[in-house]
């Protein structure tokens, strides 16, 4: 049996994962062509429990409830197709079930795509290069895989100050975390004024004219993709990057940042 659901969020239960022997992983190929479908394996699914009935096992599987999201950060252009692909096999010989979960991914534009899956406390990242990269066609703009041109790693987080109290505490702690600020201070590119190129701004900042050029460009990109009442993070290292929802915890944020180091 194969079930497919055409949405970006892939959900499964933390309880179901608790019996997994290894931490969940997101694995698969790193290259694809436009229109080509590739599959990424999501490991860590709950194992078949022979002490339970088939119905309970199926129920456990069906309860792949959710705190986990899977999203794709992609270059500008048509959005890729990304959906879960679930297979369940029944063995008549020992009346057991086996199942497998994959992410079906079909890119629609060249460039670097980053698949991000947040599974419990783990943030799983998988990069897919979609090519070939088309050489620049003068006189048009040079295509870039980075969200904005950046002289090294730069980062902008937008949050709505008036919604801070509504955020989960673990996410709100990111803004005042010394670990996040110290990491960014030591790894972000130094801008013209010699200061690290990262900021945490209110998302309705009207006047960013006093900010460095690279952060003004970042603001335009991140602001365009920001969701209402949801903090958004933008990262660019000049070659690739990510713009999407701010991870849920300090650890996940650092993991995401480190992946673009």
């Amino acid at each position, binding site marked *: 049996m194969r079930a497919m659901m055409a949405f970006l969020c892939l959900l499964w239960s933390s309880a179901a994962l608790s019996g997994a022997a290894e931490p969940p992983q997101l694995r698969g190929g790193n290259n694809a062509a436009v229109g080509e479908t590739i599959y990424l394996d999501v490991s860590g699914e709950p194992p078949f429990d022979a002490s339970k009935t088939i119905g309970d096992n199926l129920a456990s599987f069906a309860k792949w409830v959710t705190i986990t999201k899977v999203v794709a950060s992609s270059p500008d252009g048509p959005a890729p197709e990304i959906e879960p692909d679930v297979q369940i096999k029944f063995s008549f010989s020992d009346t057991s079930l086996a199942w497998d979960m994959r992410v079906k991914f079909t890119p629609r534009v060249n460039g670097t795509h980053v698949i991000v899956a947040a599974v419990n406390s783990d943030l799983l990242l998988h990069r897919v290069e979609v090519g070939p990269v088309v050489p620049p066609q003068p006189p048009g703009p040079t295509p870039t895989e980075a969200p904005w041109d950046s002289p090294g790693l730069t980062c902008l987080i937008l949050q709505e100050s008036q919604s801070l*109290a509504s955020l989960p*505490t673990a996410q709100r702690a990111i803004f005042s975390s010394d670990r996040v600020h110290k990491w960014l201070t030591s790894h972000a590119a130094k801008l013209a004024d010699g200061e690290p190129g990262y900021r*945490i701004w209110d998302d309705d900042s009207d006047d960013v004219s006093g900010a460095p050029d690279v952060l003004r460009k970042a603001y335009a990109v991140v602001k365009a993709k920001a969701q209402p009442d949801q903090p958004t993070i933008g990262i660019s290292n000049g070659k690739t990057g990510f713009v999407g929802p701010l991870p849920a915890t300090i650890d996940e944020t650092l993991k995401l940042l480190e992946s673009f180091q």
Partner: protein
Amino acid sequence: MTIGPVITDGNYQGFLEQGRRGYLGMFESAEDRRESKTFGDLGIPLIKESDWDDIIDELEKANATLHQMCKSLGLPCLDQDGTNYCWVNAPTHCAEMVRLLETGRVFSYSPASVGSPIKGFRNIGGWGSQALTYMRENGINLAEDWPANKISRSYYTDDNQEKKKAHTVAEYFVLESWEERGSCILAGRPTADGYSWWSHEVCGVGIVKKSHDLIIRNSWGMDWGDQGFATLTGSRKQSTDSVAICALKPL
């Protein structure tokens, strides 16, 4: 856990004369108060006091309370020294904390660059909202451009007035209840709190787990309290008025 000296209903008189003060009140008139936006006007959600302990616990474990952040990232408190400008020092330190949250960097601002033009370069007390309104309309200078406590016309130059504009308060709002003050602090925004009993204005930066006492940061230098931090308990923590700065002009 309390931090620094604990100021209680029983011992507060001993703290009255320890340093310069100068708080006349937050608003000079009822009209001034009415014209200011409130927490409720902005539709900011409250964090129920019954939820505070879990939040405090989680923030402390992450080393992400405001007072932990100030210590970890090295933001010193202000020292109003010989001035009566507590009513400027409190919102100034709030602004420094907001900048720290935005950039991870320590910005040292000059309370004198705000208080002196308002008071005609006189060393006298003032109203908290005067400082905030000035900071919103004109901004504040870095201490490297205008020494923090230098009440002098010689620094009131066109160049400094222009430099101020990079550091303007985008918006501030009035907090009308203890639950609003706690919500604001636990959401990561310091408050500027005026106390008539103390004739003083200081920053609210933290809530003590279980007791819900208030952790403040004073402007009497790093040698006072625990790097300027202290704890107000009982009715001492009930401010006459409180305000909070949402954000500064992006830099």
